């Protein structure tokens, strides 16, 4: 029998964030199960990126708590962050490094064991289609490859929670399909949070949808429920966020 707490990889309680008088995120509650892919939708400025920055420890919440695999992110940031992989809006790449140098650095930062280093690097490059780029400078890679490297950076240590902020921006249609496939593969072992503006993408890969508007979650349902009700996500989105 598996304990319920082990199934929940990420849980937040009444997460709030104010910037001065402006409330960016208000009462964000989330229980994410292992293997679940959550699509976070919302118009620009709805608070998606702020939420993601809080979940990854880049921004401290004004109030509320975040637990990753049962570890409080604010109390024990280092232990909690070890279970976390994050791809921000702009991929955090060092353009002067080669792909291998960069992945080695990221693996070290995430405390990948020395013995398994070669194996981990090889497998992550294979998963993200970077095997032929090992010795290339990151600055000379095309946007698509840079984006893949950004994803590789987030998944290299097999984290339990993977947070991807608009991972398919700037990719061609083939690459988008590959990335979606990759996200599905990742969901076998981890939970994934995905923010995006592309609605078909959500319908394709996500198990659950949350729509944010003006800092609050205005909609939270599983894809299965949505299909059952035969609701069109596009209409729903417009309805909820145009007020």
């Amino acid at each position, binding site marked *: 029998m598996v304990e319920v707490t082990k199934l929940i990889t990420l849980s937040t309680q009444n997460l709030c*964030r104010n*910037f001065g008088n402006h409330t960016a995120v208000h009462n964000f509650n989330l229980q994410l199960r292992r293997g679940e892919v959550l699509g976070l939708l919302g118009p620009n400025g709805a608070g998606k990126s702020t939420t993601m920055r809080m979940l*990854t*420890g*880049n*921004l*401290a919440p004004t109030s509320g708590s975040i637990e990753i695999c049962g570890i409080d992110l604010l109390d024990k*940031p*280092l*232990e909690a*962050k*070890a279970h*976390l992989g*994050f791809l*921000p809006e*702009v*991929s*955090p*790449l*060092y*353009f*002067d*490094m080669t792909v291998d*140098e960069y992945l080695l*650095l*990221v693996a*070290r*930062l*995430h*405390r990948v064991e020395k013995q398994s280093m070669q194996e981990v690097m090889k497998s992550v490059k294979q998963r993200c289609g970077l095997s032929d780029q090992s010795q290339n400078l990151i600055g000379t890679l095309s946007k698509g490859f840079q984006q893949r490297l950004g994803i590789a*950076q987030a998944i290299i240590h097999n984290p339990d929670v993977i947070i991807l902020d608009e991972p398919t921006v700037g990719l061609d249609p083939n690459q988008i399909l590959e990335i979606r496939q990759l996200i599905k593969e990742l969901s076998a072992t981890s939970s994934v949070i995905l923010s995006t503006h592309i609605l078909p993408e959500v319908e394709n890969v996500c198990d659950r949808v949350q729509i944010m508007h003006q800092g609050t979650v205005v909609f939270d349902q599983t894809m299965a429920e949505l299909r059952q009700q035969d609701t069109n996500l596009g209409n729903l989105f417009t309805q909820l966020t145009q007020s």
Partner: protein
Amino acid sequence: MLVTIIRKELNMLFISPLAWIMLALIQLVFAGFFLVRLDAFLEIQSQLLQMINSPGVTETILSPVFALAAIVLLMITPVLSMRLLAEERRNRTLTLLISSPVSITDIVLGKFLGLMIFLAIVIMLIVALSISLRTGGVLDWGLILSNTLGLFLVTACFSALGLYVSSLTAQPGIAAVVSLGVLLGLWMIDLVASETGGWIHYISLLKHFRYFNQGLIDTFSVAYFILFIVTFLVLTIRRLDGERLHG
């Protein structure tokens, strides 16, 4: 984790041509100045011999070289320290470090120590230059030691200040200009202090270095340097932490 950050910083330094050009140019300047001093020494050597208690070779040649080194390092440290945090912020790579299981203290200390290792290489090259004099005479090792220690500490102060300034902005250029400005300001204080005396000379970094330059290891100066370094490192850590808290 500290080691990972240090290795990364050194790696980043040495894959850019900046570090290599810097090392070459610095060495050229020091070697040139060293030769000029050596030449001057050889010219006045016969007169020195007639004096009682005359200054030795270390004092006449090496002390000025180390004094010049302090000024040169004051100029170049801002160029090396500017990119430490400002560039990470501009390229949005700071997010990578902060999302990793690495504490902010480790990030700041790692960056500081990485830069110090590079600057220690520069200082070691000067020491090597000094040791080359041994082929022609006897050296005053105590004076060399106090000069090396002083130069190392004063450079650590420059780096700590540069690192803090770099944490304030997302533009490496601005970071360089501001920290150079502040360091030059501290140098100006030194010039003022030597004229008026009083309390103001306690603040001047180069004033404290001058004691080391004369072969005097003063605990007050050592304490001041260490206090200066710790203050700016703590300020940097607080600054990065504050960014997480205040956005």
